[in-house]
């Protein structure tokens, strides 16, 4: 494995450890007697003592931190205070739903963003360009929970075009995915626009035009692929963040994903679950960054050429 990659891997792990420390320290300010919360209100003193020992609650914070690192290394994210279910299991059970939702959403918004971005790059300054800009800004300004509720009410309930909630079939993901798509489509259209606009101005493309290639060939063969690179980078990071919990959308549509898990754990002050979801998202983001970095180096011809 190339040294550069090892170096990145090492620093990724360090970053994750740092995140874990941060989260642990922040949540060790947990309200109330943790042992009682876990054991339940009717627990006897013996049970409480057992719980304290099991979770190392009477140890000083640095010791507990080390224990936590050990846990994380084993992939053990602790147990829910409320249901005693292993957090890792809870997250993994819900991952498919959230992943499916995100994948559908990404496909939806790219289907809109790519043509919009390419066209507005080609026809810069036109009314179409300005309109897309405004729509993109509006999309970013909508609160997710509100948009989700509006769409659910109008298209699910009133018009009956989509199921209202739950995850009984793939069709149940369409409306939630559409919610996310509305939020991000405009933004990605603008990203592609900016990226394409830059590329279209480069000497590389001018050379292709000079060589007599048709506009379409110029657009798609040369400009597009290069323009996509920075967009993919950002997409990678966004997906990872999305996976961390599309909290509001999932919660409104009652989808059994990681987002609903996070929201439920807030109401129950279920600290291990809150911590677990954060660590999971952090891991996803770091992994995505790593992956994007690797891919970037492989597909960007300029960097490839440098080697």
């Amino acid at each position: 494995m190339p040294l550069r990659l090892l170096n990145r891997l090492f620093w990724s792990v360090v970053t994750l450890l740092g995140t874990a420390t941060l989260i642990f320290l922040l949540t060790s300010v947990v309200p109330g007697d943790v042992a009682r919360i876990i054991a339940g209100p009717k627990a006897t003193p013996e049970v409480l003592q057992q719980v304290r020992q099991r979770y190392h609650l009477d140890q000083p914070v640095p010791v507990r931190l080390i224990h936590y690192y050990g846990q994380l290394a084993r992939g053990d994210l602790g147990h829910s205070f409320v249901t005693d279910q292993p957090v890792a299991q809870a997250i993994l059970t819900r991952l498919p739903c959230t992943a499916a939702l995100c994948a559908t959403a990404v496909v939806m918004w790219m289907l809109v963003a790519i043509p919009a971005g390419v066209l507005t790059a080609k026809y810069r300054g036109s009314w179409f360009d300005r309109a897309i800009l405004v729509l993109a800004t509006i999309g970013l300004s909508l609160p997710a929970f509100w948009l989700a509720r509006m769409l659910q009410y109008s298209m699910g309930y009133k018009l009956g075009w989509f199921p209202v909630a739950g995850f009984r079939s793939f069709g149940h993901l369409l409306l939630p995915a559409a919610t996310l798509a509305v939020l991000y489509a405009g933004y990605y259209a603008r990203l592609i626009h900016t990226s394409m606009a830059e590329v279209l101005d480069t000497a590389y493309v001018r050379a292709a035009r000079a060589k007599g290639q048709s506009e379409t060939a110029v657009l798609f063969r040369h400009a597009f692929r290069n323009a996509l690179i920075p967009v993919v980078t950002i997409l990678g990071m966004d997906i990872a963040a999305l996976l961390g919990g599309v909290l509001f959308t999932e919660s409104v549509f009652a989808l059994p994903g990681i987002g609903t898990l996070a929201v439920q754990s807030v109401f129950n002050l279920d600290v291990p679950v809150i911590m677990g979801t954060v660590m999971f998202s952090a891991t996803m983001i770091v992994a995505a960054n790593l992956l994007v970095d690797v891919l970037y180096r492989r597909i960007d011809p300029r960097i490839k050429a440098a080697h």
Partner: protein
Amino acid sequence: MPKPTGISLPMARKSVNCGCMLKPLFRALFANRLFLAGGGIVVLFALLALAAPALSHAHILREPFKQDQKALDTEGMPLGPERGYWLGTDNLGRDVLARVVHGARVSLTVGTAAMVMATVIGVAVGVLAGFYGGKLDLGLMRFTEMMMTIPPILLAIALASLMDGKIIHLHPASVHWHFLDVELRRGMVSLFLVIGFVCWPGMVRVIRAQVLALKEREYVQAARVLGASNLRLIFRHIMPNLLPIVIVTAAMSTANTILLEAGLGYLGIGVPPPAPSWGAMISDGQAYFTLSPHMVIVPGVAICLTVLAFNLLGQGLQDVLDVQQKR
């Protein structure tokens, strides 16, 4: 139109805030439709927010806290928009218009305070990292990266949910320095602190990149050669030239902080009731949604407009100041 940032050597020796450069700048700004639209809405809402208590006192606007039994229909359900109540009432008989206007106070205050906090910290970290470079840069950036791996909303939720009145003793148990006790109670202060804390990492990269670019400019090199101290370099040359990008980022990040505040209010961990918070209003209204949708629609529109306004404002500023923003 002349662009005001770092143009030519003699002009750049003075700080940006020089009268002769501002007039063309303002002209450019006011010609920009986005800036006007966004700025206009922001100013309007800010004025309404500031004037809200006075308006309620003068009975032009109703009290947002008054639960009026008569403002509900015969079955105790909220009234829809009608002559007496322009935006209807909520389930406790409170005037929605009054609550939305007073809610602007909460959202704008928390949003702005959080933005200021995030900007101050973000600029500090970015400048230190970019200017001094080396180990400091590496350390600060690593720390920022760590913060950025946590999705902001999750971190905000985790932090905000811990605010339940517990007292943290920052002093060792044996020493009774009770002024070092911090009470974590829910309120505007703890809210903007949480949101600010969550948002500052997003600003660092941009600031740092700009600082790195500015460091290489001729006038900075020149000043250094002339014997200027680091601090003088930072405060007289770098910071003022950061102003444009800081302003743009600040505008856009206010949009973000307001969305976060609404989200936290929606989950019930924002400002505690009966304070009118747009997010909490939406959450309260959900139970009555199919019967009285205005309870959910109205605060939602308010949030959209405000956030949109800040985004447009930032977009307009960006256009005019021609600042390149790369993530």
